[in-house]
C-alpha cells in the first residue's frame, strides 16, 4: 500500500477541515440570499483579503498549539502593533525603504518570539503566562516607540497590499501559497514531524532523538515572525499602523486554529482548516451584519452558530 496516497486523502477528509469550509459556504450563501444575491463576489473578495491576516498569524499560532497542551502565543497583539509601527516608521513613506522596513518588522517579530521561548525554557515560566506578560511588555514598547502616531505607508507598499487580479486580492493569493508551503513543511520535513511528535509526548520525542529545544524555539520564533509580517502588511493595508490594530488577534488567532481542526491536545495540526475557519468567521460576521441584527442578538447568533458547526463536524474518536 502506498503510504502517501493513503495518508493524504485521509488528511484531506479530516472532517474539521471540510467542516469549516462548508460552514463558510453556508453563511456566505445565507448572506447572499438575504441581500437578494447581490454583491456575493465582492463579499468573497473582502473575505479573502481580511482572512489573509488571520491565516498568517493563525499558522504561527497553530505551530505552537500543535506542540502540546499549554503552549499558546498570547503576545501576538503586541507584536502586531509593534511590528506595524516599526514598519511604518522605518519605511517613512519612502518606496525605497520598503524592504528595510519589512525586514525590521520581521526581525522584531522573530525577536519577540525567541524571547518568549527564552522565558519559557530558561525561566521555566508556563507559556501562557510568559506570552501574556511579554505581550504587555511589547505593547509598552510599541507605545513608547510609536506613541500612537500614524505614519502613512509608502504608496508602492500600500498598493501592493491592496492590489487585486481579477477581483482576487494579490495578498490572499500569496497567503494561499504560503499556507500550502507550510502544509508541506508540517507533513514532510523533520521540523514538521518534530513539532507533531513533541505535541503528542515531549518526553517520548526527546527519547526518540527529536531536537526538542531547537524545535520549540523555532515554533515560537516563527509565530513571532508571522505576527510581525502580519503587522507590517496590516499597516500597509489599512493606511498606517495603530496601537490597537492587533487587539482582535488575541482570541481570533486561537479561534481560527481550533475551529480549523488543530487539536489543543497537541500533535495534530491542520493548515487548510485555518483558511476555512478564517473565511467562516469573517463571513459569519458579515452575514449577521447584513441581517441587521442588534449587537446582542448578533453575538448570541455568532456563538450558537460556532457551537452548531463544531457539533455537526463532531470531535475525533479516540484511537483505542
Amino acid at each position, binding site marked *: 500500500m502506498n503510504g502517501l496516497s493513503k495518508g493524504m486523502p485521509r488528511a484531506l477528509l479530516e472532517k474539521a477541515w471540510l467542516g469549516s469550509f462548508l460552514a463558510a459556504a453556508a453563511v456566505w450563501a445565507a448572506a447572499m440570499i438575504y441581500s437578494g444575491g447581490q454583491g*456575493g463576489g465582492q463579499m468573497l473578495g*473582502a473575505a479573502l483579503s481580511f482572512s489573509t491576516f488571520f491565516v498568517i498569524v493563525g499558522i504561527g499560532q497553530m505551530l505552537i498549539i500543535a506542540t502540546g497542551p499549554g503552549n499558546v502565543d498570547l503576545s501576538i497583539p503586541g507584536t502586531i*502593533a509593534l511590528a506595524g509601527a516599526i514598519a511604518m516608521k522605518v519605511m517613512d513613506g519612502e518606496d525605497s525603504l520598503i524592504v528595510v522596513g519589512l525586514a525590521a518588522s520581521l526581525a522584531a517579530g522573530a525577536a519577540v518570539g525567541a524571547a518568549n521561548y527564552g522565558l519559557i525554557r530558561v525561566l521555566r515560566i508556563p507559556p501562557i503566562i510568559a506570552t501574556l506578560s511579554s505581550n504587555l511588555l511589547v505593547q509598552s514598547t510599541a*507605545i513608547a516607540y510609536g506613541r500612537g*502616531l500614524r505614519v502613512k505607508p509608502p504608496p508602492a507598499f500600500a498598493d501592493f497590499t491592496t492590489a487585486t487580479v481579477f477581483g482576487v486580492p494579490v495578498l490572499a493569493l500569496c497567503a494561499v501559497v504560503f499556507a500550502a508551503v507550510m502544509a508541506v513543511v508540517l507533513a514532510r520535513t523533520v521540523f514538521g514531524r518534530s513539532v507533531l511528535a513533541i505535541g503528542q509526548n515531549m518526553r517520548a520525542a526527546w527519547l526518540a532523538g527529536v531536537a526538542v529545544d531547537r524545535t520549540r524555539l523555532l515554533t515560537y520564533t516563527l509565530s513571532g515572525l508571522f505576527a510581525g509580517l502580519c503587522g507590517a502588511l496590516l499597516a500597509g493595508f489599512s493606511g498606517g499602523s495603530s496601537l*490597537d490594530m492587533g487587539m*482582535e488577534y488575541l482570541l481570533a488567532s486561537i479561534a481560527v486554529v481550533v475551529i480549523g481542526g488543530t487539536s489543543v491536545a497537541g500533535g495534530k495540526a491542520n493548515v487548510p482548516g485555518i483558511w476555512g475557519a478564517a473565511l467562516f468567521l469573517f463571513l459569519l460576521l*458579515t452575514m449577521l*451584519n447584513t441581517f441587521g441584527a442588534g449587537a446582542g442578538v448578533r453575538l448570541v447568533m455568532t456563538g450558537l452558530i460556532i457551537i452548531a458547526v463544531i457539533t455537526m463536524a463532531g470531535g475525533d474518536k479516540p484511537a483505542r
Partner: protein
Amino acid sequence: DTADKRIALSNNYAGNSWRQAMLKSWDKVTGKAVADGIVKEAPAFTTAENQATEQAAQIQNLILQGYDAIVLNAASPTALNGAVKEACSAGVTVVSFDGVVTEPCAWRIAVDFAKMGEVQLDYLAKRMAGGANLLEIRGLAGVFVDDEIHKGIVAGVAKYPQFKIVGSVHGDWAQTVAQKNVAGILPSLPKVDAVVTQGGDGYGAAQAFKAANRPTPLIVMGNRHDELTWWKQQKDANKYETMSVSIAPGVSTLAFWVAQQILDGKPVPKDMIVPFLRIDQENLEQNLANTEPGGVANVEYLQADALKVIASAK
C-alpha cells in the same frame, strides 16, 4: 491653597491616539502646574487592561497612596461606583471626565454624546436635503458612549425622516476593525451616501470604500490627524466636503483644574458640560495645522478657562 495637594489621573486605556493625546496634554499642563507650585504632584496611571475591574483596583490603590483627588476617565459609568464611593468616604475628591461615573459623590465633566450624534444628522440634513442612505459605524457594544451617540443618531434620523440607515456595524472605535466590518457589509448594501461615525473610524471606512471600488460617500470624521489629512487631500483634489466632530483629549486638563479648584475649597457644581470639538470645511486647514501628526485635534485648558467653564455651569 493647594500647593501640598496631590492629584492622580486614573486612566483605563492607552492604546489609541486619542488616549495618547489625552495623556500628553495631562503631562504638559500638570507638569507646568507642579513647576509653578500650584499642586505638589499629578502623576498619571494607566491600567494594563481596558477593564472596569482593573480600574476599580487601581482606584483603591490610589486611595491607599493617599492622593487628595483622583481624576478619572472611567471604563464604565457604573461599574466603578463601588470604588468611587470608597474613595469619597476616604475623603478623596473624584472628578470624572469623558467616561464619567454615575456615583453622586463624584464630579462629572460630561460631553453631550447624544448631541454629538445628533449634530451629524443636522449637518447631513443641510447637505443632503433630499435624504440619503446612511451607514452607521458604532463603537463597542455594551459601552455607555456607544449607546449615547447611537441614540443621538437615531433621534436625528427621527427628526429628518428622509434619511435611512441601511446598514450598521460595530467598529469598536478601532480603525482596522471598522475597516474590516465595513468591507464585509458593503457588498450587500445599496448605494451609501453618507457614513455617520463615532470617531476614530472614518479613515478605516474610507479605505473600505476604496477597496470595494465604491464612490466615496460623505464620511463624518472624528478629528484624528489621519482623518483630517485624508479630508484635506480629498478637498484639494475634488472639493470633498464633510465635517468632523469629537471630544478634545485636552479635557483631561480641564478635569485637572476642576479638581484643583475643589481642593482649593471653591464651590464647584457636580455636573458640568463641555462642548465637543467640531471642525468644518472652513477651519479644516487651521485645525490640521494645530494637530500634530498622528495625534488628535486638541484644546488644552488653562486655569482661567476652567474657571469660565465652572462659572457657566452655575
